[in-house]
């Protein structure tokens, strides 16, 4: 990471950092609808555009359903589209999330994680984006404002990569990241512009019948195509397989673009999929997502000083889920703790817990896995609680009868 370029240090909150990333990423069309804690993203982008600092079209739609629909329209018309939302807004988009992914429109969306209603609550948990985990979008979670900026820029490259062609959600924790000021390194405009380039619609092969020809996959009177036809049991499954395969190709692309970005920015986060911290020689590993894992690093340091061999692993990409990488990291450890900031009602634990445990099933020596559902509706997760969890995980193998899922921070 030697020859990274000169960057500008700015005091920005997470939302502003995302707006800066969008501003620099040659976005053609932004379509969005305001919702706390996402609003600042939309407001900053509007300011940039109104002040002539960002050359994009902005569509101030009348709902999130329309925000994503308009983004899709822009995308299939050949443009680079960006949107942002949170919680109820994401829930309102639900129908269109699947359509955008299935039609392989490389839309990028920032999701500022917020608890889903009811009761109505504006603070952070991951129930919104976790609810969208099967929609076919790539999901990348950020730890802080800097990473939200970095991830947003990379997201355009990942989404539009010819081996991927899938929409990408970039997550940042509501308030904890979105509204928290931080020193953020902002790359020069031209460097980001060169890195992301301009949207080039992918090309598709015409059936042989028409001769050897590749045509742009977009609304284009030169080569008219039908996008979004009826598709029943004779082809639907094959089309779903293509989506499954594209998702399988995504990890390589995410890692590659992450590395390329590290070279210009000097910043990297593990291999791009997982961000491990003091994990190599750890007896116990704590896995989780988002800003809490930043706190966890400090807690790991504290425990290490006490001679307790704890490490942490932050999951950056929940979709595609880095199961192989998790298996590798977990194969040496004696116990694992998994932190979930969302509940799956009626399931054995949170979504991350279930996926981690499932990934470990094929290991010969499976370590015990403890699940923790925490922080719902923005409930604080202080270091002392994380420390307690880590200590509990560290001793897990000695007490195999212990209940597998706990709810730290909740009142009895």
């Amino acid at each position, binding site marked *: 990471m030697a020859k990274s370029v000169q960057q500008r240090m700015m005091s920005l909150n997470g939302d502003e950092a995302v707006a800066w990333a969008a501003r620099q990423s040659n976005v*053609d*069309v932004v*379509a969005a609808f305001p919702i706390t804690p996402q609003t600042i993203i939309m407001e900053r982008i509007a300011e940039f555009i109104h002040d002539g600092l960002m*050359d*994009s*079209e902005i*569509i*101030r*739609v*009348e*709902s999130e*359903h*329309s*925000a994503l*629909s*308009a*983004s*899709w*329209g*822009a*995308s*299939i*018309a*050949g*443009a680079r*589209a960006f949107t942002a939302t949170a919680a109820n807004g994401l829930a309102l988009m639900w*129908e*269109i999330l699947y*359509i955008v992914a299935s*039609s392989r429109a490389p839309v990028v969306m920032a999701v500022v994680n917020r608890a889903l209603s009811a009761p109505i609550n504006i603070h952070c948990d991951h129930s919104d984006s976790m609810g969208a985990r099967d929609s076919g979008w790539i999901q990348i979670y950020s730890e802080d404002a800097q990473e939200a900026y970095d991830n947003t820029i990379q997201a355009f490259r990942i989404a539009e990569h010819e081996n991927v062609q899938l929409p990408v959600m970039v997550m940042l924790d509501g308030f904890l990241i979105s509204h928290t000021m931080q020193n953020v390194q902002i790359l020069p405009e031209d460097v980001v512009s060169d890195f992301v380039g*301009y949207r080039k619609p992918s090309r598709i092969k015409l059936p042989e019948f028409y001769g050897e020809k590749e*045509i*742009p996959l*977009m*609304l*284009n*009177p*030169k*080569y*008219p*195509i*039908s*996008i*979004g*036809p*009826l*598709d*029943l049991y004779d*082809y639907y499954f094959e*089309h779903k397989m293509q989506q499954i395969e594209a998702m399988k190709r995504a990890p390589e692309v995410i890692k590659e673009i992450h590395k390329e970005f590290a070279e210009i920015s000097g910043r990297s986060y593990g291999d791009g999929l997982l961000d491990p911290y003091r994990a190599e020689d750890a007896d116990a590993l704590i896995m989780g997502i988002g800003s809490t894992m930043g706190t966890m690093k400090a807690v790991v340091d504290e425990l290490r000083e006490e001679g307790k061999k704890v490490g942490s692993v932050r999951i950056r990409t929940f979709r595609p889920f880095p199961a192989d990488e998790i298996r590798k990291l977990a194969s040496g450890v004696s116990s694992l703790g998994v932190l979930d900031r969302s509940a799956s009602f009626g399931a054995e634990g949170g979504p991350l817990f279930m996926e981690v445990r499932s990934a470990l099933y094929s290991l010969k020596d499976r370590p015990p896995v403890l699940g923790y559902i925490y922080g719902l509706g923005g409930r604080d997760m202080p270091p002392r609680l994380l420390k307690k969890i880590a200590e509990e995980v560290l001793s897990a193998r000695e007490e195999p009868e212990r209940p597998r899922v706990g709810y730290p921070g909740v009142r009895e």
Partner: protein
Amino acid sequence: MAETKWVPNIRQIAKEMHERGFTGITPGHRLCAGCVAGTIVRQVMMAARKPVVVINATGCLEVATTIFPYTAWQVPWAHNAFENAAAVASGVERAQAKLIRDKRFEGDPDIEMDYDIVVFGGDGGTYDIGLQALSGALERGHKFMYVLYDNEAYMNTGIQRSGSTPFGAWTTTTPAGKVIPGKPVGKKPLVDIIAAHRIPYVATVSPYYWNDALVKFRKGFEADGPVFIRAFSTCNRGWYNAPEESIAISRLAVETCVFPLYEVVNGVEWRLSPPSLAIAKNPQKKKPVEEYLKTQRRFRHMFKPENRWMIKRFQEMVDYEWELLLERVGLKG
């Protein structure tokens, strides 16, 4: 605006389309025989001044014109969902503006960016579930022509009532029961609602009056902003009319004033179109609604002795709307 110098020469258009092998939508689609939704699409294509891109809401037209790997569309066509066609069109329109402004694809021999955008939506996708997205798009002023093919029910899902289903009509969710015979309420005054957005051009068309329809579609293409056109669209499956009578019914609807033909410019200037103007000037030409109702078995129960009051009520409702329209176009009193 809302004037055009264009005069459709049907022979010329037909000849040109034939020579190019282009009608916008090909034969072999799976719309029912007698469905005029396809006729409306063709009339739109005949009025086109440059390439057209179509956005289609979920519904009969979408389902019947595509099934992977086939499509009946000779123009770029996209379908996303039921309630968001106007929002999708908003995105397409802004993308087009940006890409043209940037000259992004200029010089690329494989890409053409100069096109008009047309949306086709059914009454369900327009009166009901898609009204919000449409209203938002009209307020924002995107340039596209929204063509509602109004067959007065959710046909694709099997003839359920919509906000457009007329009073008394049988549908599968307003059955002609013993206690409640058909739909108890009338139609939503959608054109009024759309016109209230003060968009440049709103009009109604009926496929029988093809000349009037073509000119209006052409005005729609030429308008500088959002355009809304409501097209009368028979559905022999849902209306239980004889398929071969579709076009005749399209005429009767105008002659009975069930479906008057008019234009609204900038939301304030209301004008009757020639076929309806002729009736306004010569009221004895106005045919009783019974003539229209009897062509469709969805109204059959209204002809039972105990339900005859429904025909009277239907006539009153049509008269009321017609009088309101005459007032608006300044032909009353």
